[in-house]
């Protein structure tokens, strides 16, 4: 099964002619029965042995291959009377409407025909779509009088699903077929039916083939019967439907031969039409679905293909894979970002195929000897003739004796193997990255905390999937393109997406802040833990900045403002009293603290610098070591927070209270001004809108200001909540403001709350009251507690957020799907051209600037400021 035998150059989609169906058919099906009393299939029945075999022990009577290999053969049913195919009913209707009922010509004048034929020819020559022009033909070719034979035309209507009505007369399928037969091949082409014969005289389609005279019967492999435990046979839905068709067909034939009255024949004909219709599509509108005896609607052909659970979306687009594993994830700060901890129980189950060579044969033999249960073992051995041998405890010795170069051993996963790791939803390329395996005890996947942001993972029960590569090529590709360290920089914004989070940030701050002094003993402990080289003893104390400098490249120079920078008007630079001005010279952290801006995910400047200047290997080392330092740092200092961190003195509370009261008064003044018509409308706004905006502004300022008051009583040196907020580890100053000072205005859809009872939000207020509280301003702080009205407004604001997230996830999923569908075939060529799957150029140069955003400076090709800074430091200015 190697090598390509033939290349497909073209696929034609067309209709099957009755002859095609008969030619394909291996037997005529006549008997509406499956098995006889002895359980043998009936000849010319629906389970005729010539239709193929399922039982692997039997041989097919048509192709002589065994069950499982024989893919089955079609049979056919000769219908006593023609029947319209539901799938084509609409097309038939359109064709009849656009053709003459007596001469069969298309209802276009001769000049129009010439015109359209020319258009068709050019389109076909240019391999362009004919859909729109065919649609046009159908709209133009509707006349009351045939331009060819001058016959008056009656209106043809369709009565869903399959009845074609002309005027008031219902056409029988036979009449429909006769009419379709009269349409000349050349006219059919204009109607979208390619009826022109090719050089062998074969046609792709003819209009009358849309009316069935012979029905193909799918092979038994398509509709296998199942045997229940009771020994009872249960037939497939399709078989049931075919039985119905055969029965009615038989009766119709008998009645016709016996010369039964027209009425009876027509009734049976209708019934045959119904059965054939539901055989194709049991959900066609206008027909009651055919039901099983239990009342369950049958699953017929269309139902097998359609929809999410159908063949296309479920079996063809959605493939399932082997060599994969899924389990709960948990954090491990001690493994590298490149690694993933794999539970032993998984490592012994999913395997890597290894070619046995002279150089690894001993190792492979040891694996086989360990067997399938002991960890670095093996589960299968594959002989050079591709026969797979399962390794059992009992047989492992026998396999070892036989093994020689040329075999393949499926050995257990072991440390250092490359695997693919994924968390759904896979929204960007960093959702699937290649990790190195670390086989670990227990039952969860372990991952480094720095890779949480790209996967958007947390550990509240998240599960992730792992896939093991099965070929050397895939492993090589994954290792060079998909490794975690290659994705530290995100193509989304050209900055790091993998980096320190939460405690890494506060830890680094505690380690590098000014007052952090460590004894030599402590320093050695910290460095040891980060697996950094231990320097010589000097007997002196270290600053935290010195410790952190150990992980920086020796020739690194960078200057930036840290996250804790208060954005003073007059920057003191190196003398900054917050220690927010970071200066690194020759790999030494001279001033400034390490916080989110240094190596945090999404913001880390140092990390960004290292990746771009020193490469991804160095960046991985830096991230692994620095996060470990930070964890040591936080452990040495100790870190905790509680509501005590949000405590402020009575004096502060009073100041806030005064401030908020003033703001509320200001709001009242605004309302008064509005009531007295003294308020001036802002340009482009109505008076009401102006008032709302001003009130919102006043209340927003009030909250911010009260937050500032509260903040002024906080001490970053003592207060861990503040450390977290300011360094960017977790939480924000706004969170702290809401806890200590004032929760602030609650908003629903961007504005103050104005729905509710007539002309007021709640009956606790006056009608038409516009004051702060009446429209959802929460004066209290979380710590103080909210009164019932405030609490309710707060719940309203909260509900909006909840609904938004619920709706957004569903919407963004659908958007992603459409985007992927639109872009999936685009392809960047070696020369930077972007083409689609037909080779049509979309962009002459990728992204119009040929810049890989992941390698750019935050999206820009070069960051000049940064370059100038670097030069300054290098030249010592």
């Amino acid at each position, binding site marked *: 099964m190697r090598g390509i035998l033939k290349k497909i150059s073209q696929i034609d989609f067309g209709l099957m002619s009755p002859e095609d169906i008969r030619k394909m058919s291996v037997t005529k099906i006549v008997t509406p029965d499956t098995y006889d009393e002895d359980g043998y299939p009936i000849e010319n029945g629906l389970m005729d042995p010539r239709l193929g075999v399922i039982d692997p022990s039997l041989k097919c009577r048509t192709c002589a291959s065994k069950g499982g290999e024989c893919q089955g053969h079609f049979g056919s049913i000769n219908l006593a009377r023609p029947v319209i195919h539901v799938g084509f009913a609409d097309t038939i209707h359109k064709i009849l409407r656009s053709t003459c009922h007596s001469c069969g010509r298309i209802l276009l004048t001769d000049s129009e025909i010439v015109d359209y034929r020319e258009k068709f020819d050019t389109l076909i020559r240019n391999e362009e779509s004919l859909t729109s022009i065919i649609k046009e033909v159908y709209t133009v070719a509707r006349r009351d009088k045939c331009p060819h034979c001058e016959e008056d035309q009656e209106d043809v209507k369709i009565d869903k699903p399959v009845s074609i009505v002309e005027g008031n007369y219902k056409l029988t399928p036979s009449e429909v077929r006769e009419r379709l037969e009269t349409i000349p091949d050349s006219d059919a082409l204009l109607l979208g039916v390619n009826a022109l014969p090719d050089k062998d005289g074969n046609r792709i389609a003819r209009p009358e083939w849309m009316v069935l005279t012979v029905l193909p019967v799918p092979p038994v492999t398509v509709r296998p019967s199942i045997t229940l435990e009771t020994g009872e046979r249960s037939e497939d839905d399709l078989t049931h439907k075919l039985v119905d068709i055969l029965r009615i067909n038989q009766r119709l034939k008998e009645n016709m031969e016996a010369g039964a009255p027209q009425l009876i024949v027509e009734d049976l004909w209708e019934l045959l039409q119904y059965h054939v219709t539901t055989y194709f599509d049991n959900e066609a509108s206008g027909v009651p679905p055919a039901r099983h005896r239990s009342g369950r609607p049958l699953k017929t052909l269309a139902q097998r293909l359609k929809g999410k659970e159908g063949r296309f979306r479920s079996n063809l687009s959605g493939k399932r894979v082997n060599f994969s594993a899924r389990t709960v994830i948990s954090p491990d700060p001690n493994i590298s970002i490149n690694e993933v901890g794999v539970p032993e129980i998984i490592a012994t189950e999913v395997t890597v195929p290894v070619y046995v060579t002279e150089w690894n044969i001993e190792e492979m033999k040891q694996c086989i000897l360990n067997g399938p249960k002991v960890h670095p073992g093996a589960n299968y051995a594959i002989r050079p003739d591709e026969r797979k041998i399962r390794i059992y405890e009992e047989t492992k010795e026998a396999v070892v004796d036989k093994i020689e170069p040329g075999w393949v051993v499926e050995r257990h996963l072991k440390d250092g193997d490359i695997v693919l790791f994924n968390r759904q939803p896979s929204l960007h390329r960093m959702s699937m990255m290649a990790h190195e395996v670390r086989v670990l005890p227990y039952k969860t996947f372990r991952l480094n905390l720095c890779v949480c942001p790209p996967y958007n993972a947390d550990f509240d029960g998240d599960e992730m999937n792992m896939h093991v590569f099965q070929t050397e090529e895939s492993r090589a590709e994954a290792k060079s393109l998909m490794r975690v360290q290659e994705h530290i920089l995100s193509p989304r914004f050209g900055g790091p997406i993998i980096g320190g989070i939460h405690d890494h940030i506060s830890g680094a701050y505690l380690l590098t802040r000014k007052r952090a002094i460590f004894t030599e003993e402590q320093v050695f402990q910290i460095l040891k833990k980060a697996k950094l080289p231990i320097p010589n003893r000097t007997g002196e104390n270290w600053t935290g900045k010195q410790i952190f400098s150990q992980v920086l490249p020796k020739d690194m120079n960078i200057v930036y403002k840290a996250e804790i920078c208060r954005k003073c008007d007059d920057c003191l630079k190196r003398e900054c009293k917050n220690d927010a001005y970071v200066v690194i010279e020759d790999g030494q952290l001279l001033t400034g603290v390490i916080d989110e801006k240094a190596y945090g995910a999404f913001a880390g400047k140092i990390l960004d610098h290292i990746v771009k200047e020193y490469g991804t290997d160095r960046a991985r080392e830096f991230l692994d070591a620095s996060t470990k330092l930070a964890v040591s740092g936080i452990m040495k200092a100790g870190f905790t927070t509680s509501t005590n961190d949000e405590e402020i003195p009575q004096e502060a509370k009073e100041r806030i209270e005064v401030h908020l009261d003033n703001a509320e008064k200001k709001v009242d003044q605004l309302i008064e001004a509005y009531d007295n018509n003294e308020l001036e409308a802002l340009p482009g706004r109505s008076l009401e809108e102006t008032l709302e905006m001003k009130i919102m502004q006043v209340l927003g300022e009030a909250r911010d200001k009260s937050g500032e008051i509260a903040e002024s009583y906080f001490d970053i040196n003592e207060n861990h909540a503040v450390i977290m907020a300011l360094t960017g580890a977790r939480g924000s100053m706004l969170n702290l403001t809401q806890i200590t000072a004032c929760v602030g205005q609650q908003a629903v859809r961007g504005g103050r709350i104005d729905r509710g009872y007539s002309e007021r939000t709640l009956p606790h207020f006056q009608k038409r009251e516009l004051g702060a509280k009446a429209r959802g301003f929460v004066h209290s702080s979380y710590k103080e507690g909210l009164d019932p009205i405030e609490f309710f407004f707060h719940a*309203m604001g909260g509900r909006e957020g909840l609904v938004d997230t619920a709706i957004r996830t569903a919407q963004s999923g659908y958007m992603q799907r459409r985007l992927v569908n639109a872009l999936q075939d685009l392809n960047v060529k070696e020369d930077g051209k972007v083409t689609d799957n037909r080779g049509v150029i979309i962009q002459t140069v990728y992204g119009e600037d040929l810049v890989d955003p992941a390698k750019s400076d935050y999206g820009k090709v070069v960051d000049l400021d940064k370059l100038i800074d670097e030069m300054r430091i290098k030249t010592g200015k």
Partner: protein
Amino acid sequence: MKKSAWGMVDAFFDKYNLVDHHIKSYNDFVNHRIQDIIDIAEPITLEQGAYSVQTGKLEIKPPFTKEADGSKSHIFPTEARLRNLTYSAHMYLEMALSKGEEQQDFEKVYIGELPLMLKSDICHLSNLNEQELMAKGEDPQDPGGYFIVNGSERAIVTMEEIAPNKIILERIGEIEDRRARAIVTSIKSGFRARISLEYRKPRKTGVFLRISFPYVPGEIPLVVLLRALGLSTDEEIITHISDDFNYQMIVADDIQVSDPALKIEAEEMEELTKEERREYLTKSAIKYIGNRVAKGMTEEYRIRRAEDVIDRYLLPHMGIESENRAEKATYLAEMTEMLLQVISETREPHDKDHYTNKRLRVSGDLMEDLFRVAFTSLTRDMSYQLERSLARGKEPSVKQAVRSDVLTENIKHAIATGNWVGGRAGVSQLLDRTSYMGTLSHMRRVVSPLSRSQPHFEARDLHPTQFGKICPNETPEGPNCGLVKNLALMAKISEGSDPEEIENIIKKMGVLN
């Protein structure tokens, strides 16, 4: 909160149970509404009235089981749960089959089982004290209010719906579109008739005001319907709708546009007296409707059918007799004025999420729907059985004609699967027993019939009118957010009352007419 206030809370819960709404409404269902349904049901007649079946009083006997050996014993919920039985009461109905005019005596016929709500009046547990409950294997803290069907506990979830028998005005699109709609869902003994009056600029020619109601395909001009209801002359229609000249003009335009469709012959009218003229106009409107409801039938039938449709399916809550037509016309006319006020921005459309415009249907109401359908299928089955025995020449007997399984299975199946009549799914759910609070919360759940697949941002919001009625905090996250709600802890659901009773009270207080 002050200590005294907590005392009030205690007092509240001394008097009211957390699942009172279920139990009270179920009790009402058992004690009154079942009998009403049976009384209203159309009597069975056979062979053009030669035979007929009369129904009398219903008797409901508390749950018991019949063992294989034929012995009967009281069954308690715990036993039902353990043995996968259904905790259900047995219903006996007085029925009599009379031949021709002669009246027969009633005989008591077993018609089927009715799943029983725990702790309702006829439940064995209703009057037990704590010790007795424990002796019967029950948790004395258990609130009841749910059913046991085939051993599984099923709670019927309260459904929220837009208030019936009430005009709801809504705007379609933006104000500038000048489109609005007035909807009334009229309910008369289980039959829901939704009428919708819409103001819309016609595409080419036609009327602005169109109305649609059950059994009339498509929409018909409002003025035609008013005419058919007896507001025959143009003047009557216009003045009934509004005193405002602007609105009158809109209606006058509509009348002019719709007149040709009524095929009124001016010459014919001239010779008629005023009374005859009125009749002629009304008749032509009825004919117009008749052409819609019974196309292709004889004229006589068309007229009869049109009148029938107007009386029975248009605003049935106002009555289903022809005497109610004038009242209905007034109602529609006022509705029209309100709609026109919305269009001209002198009246605000209704807030659909305002809790005043919502009603909650509790287990009793939902059981009523179920029982009505189940009982009709029983009577249908009965007449089929009777006909069959008649055809075989046997002496018909009600006792033999009643197949109690029909009613039992219909009701049981709905509660067991949650597939209610009218195609609603998930009405009854497996009672949440993950925790005691989970159970209580489940019994107080309120679901909105809005689909979870559409955003419906406004419906999901916490509306200020829900203050005190709906819990502001408890709603699921995800697609059902804001659509599945829970009653506030101290909220109780009032049971509806008979309008006549209230009318009498008001009259007694001295209100005239």
